[in-house]
């Protein structure tokens, strides 16, 4: 696999798992209907699966995050031998912005994974996961920009990824609820998730507009750079997911009340698949040179092949 593709892929898998963790925890605290008074096998099954999904997401985020850390370390240090890479890991962790913030995120994820089960600690787990997601700008283009523009980019990206986690990360829990819970409870969960989804869409769009306006490089950047082309692809995928969300809300959710779940289950699964595709496209987007940077390549003192590393 190309030395440029692997870090971007690991980044996408790590971020996707981290967003999934946040979405599951948000869903469990804010969307899942209250447990019935008596013993209920379906309710207990969904709760157990959500707990397992949270653990798997946190574990995958840790694993892929550590692999991403190592891949980036090897790239920026210019070494490939395992021993040499290992020697640079503490240097990168302690003395670079990327390494410090990614190490902090891995610690947060580990804490979520190790927190004892129990209702009292669920909000703490949610806050830790939200903090892990919110630091995403410091691992991307936004965190490198100095001054007020940097502040605007960091705020825009933090809102963007938190909302994306709440929406896309909650789709699999929603699918499980609709499939396992009684129709009335499934319908109730859909209605609550729909309200969360609308707030998430508004936040994603607001954050995305900020990032796009400052990084895309205008129409020329959108049309004539890899970054711009990926951004257009991501926007197209987002609109497709939005279309499915509208279909779910206005056509398929009402049918759940009458016991017809198959349509909604298929649609939510498709929406989740689009969400995964969006996260992967975003990972390559974060690894490519924004259209706004193209003008700088012609500056005096720049090499013609000024490289945009793919981390």
């Amino acid at each position, binding site marked *: 696999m190309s030395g440029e593709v692997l870090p971007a892929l690991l980044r996408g898998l790590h971020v996707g798992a981290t967003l999934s963790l946040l979405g599951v925890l948000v869903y469990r605290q804010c969307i899942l209907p209250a447990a019935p008074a008596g013993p209920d096998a379906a309710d207990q099954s969904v709760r157990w699966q959500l707990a397992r999904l949270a653990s798997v997401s946190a574990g995958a985020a840790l694993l892929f995050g550590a692999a991403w850390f190592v891949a980036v370390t090897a790239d*920026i240090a210019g070494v490939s031998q395992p021993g040499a890479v290992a020697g640079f890991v503490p240097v990168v962790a302690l003395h670079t912005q990327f390494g410090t913030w990614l190490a902090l995120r891995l610690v947060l994820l580990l804490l979520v994974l190790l927190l004892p089960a129990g209702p009292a600690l669920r909000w703490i787990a949610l806050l830790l996961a939200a903090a892990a997601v919110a630091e995403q700008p410091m691992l991307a283009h936004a965190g490198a920009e100095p001054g007020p523009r940097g502040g605007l980019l960091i705020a825009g990206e933090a809102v963007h990824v938190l909302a994306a986690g709440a929406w896309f990360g909650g789709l699999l829990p929603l699918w499980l609820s609709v499939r396992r819970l009684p129709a009335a409870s499934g319908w109730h969960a859909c209605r609550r998730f729909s309200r969360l989804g609308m707030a998430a869409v508004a936040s994603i769009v607001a954050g995305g507009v900020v990032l796009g306006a400052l990084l895309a490089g205008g129409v020329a950047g959108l049309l004539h750079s890899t970054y711009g082309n990926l951004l257009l692809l991501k926007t197209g995928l987002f609109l497709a997911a939005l279309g499915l969300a509208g279909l779910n809300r206005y056509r398929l959710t009402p049918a759940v009340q009458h016991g017809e779940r198959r349509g909604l289950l298929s649609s939510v699964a498709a929406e989740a698949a689009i969400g995964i595709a969006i996260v992967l496209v975003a990972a390559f987007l974060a690894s490519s040179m924004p259209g706004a940077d193209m*003008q700088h390549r012609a500056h005096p*003192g720049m090499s013609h092949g000024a490289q945009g590393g793919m981390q």
Partner: protein
Amino acid sequence: MAGRNTFRPTRTAVCLAWMLAIAPAASAHAFLEHASPGVGSTVAAPAELRLTFTERVEPLFSRVTVRSPAGTPLPAGRLETARNGQQLVVKLPKLAPGTYTVQWHVTSVDTHKTQGSFRFTVQPGS
């Protein structure tokens, strides 16, 4: 109710659009913004070289080489940073007249790599 503080989405959207419209495009890779001695300039022997980039860079994973008119790398001092990490500073030995080549490779804090080179000329009395 008089004095009620209500959220106005249209006004908020217009304000956000205006802020974005006046904000210059951001840079997401470290590009050379300014050099002292300047790119292609003729100067009296400088005591140091200052390279200012469009974003913050990681000094531990950046490199600046200054080559003499004969192409020999000059003994390099420690790479220091200034301006909140956006500027790299290299102390120079006493430079004889001639044209020097500066080659730089930097890693920005978001781990992207860029590189470039330029020349400046040392001429007494400039």
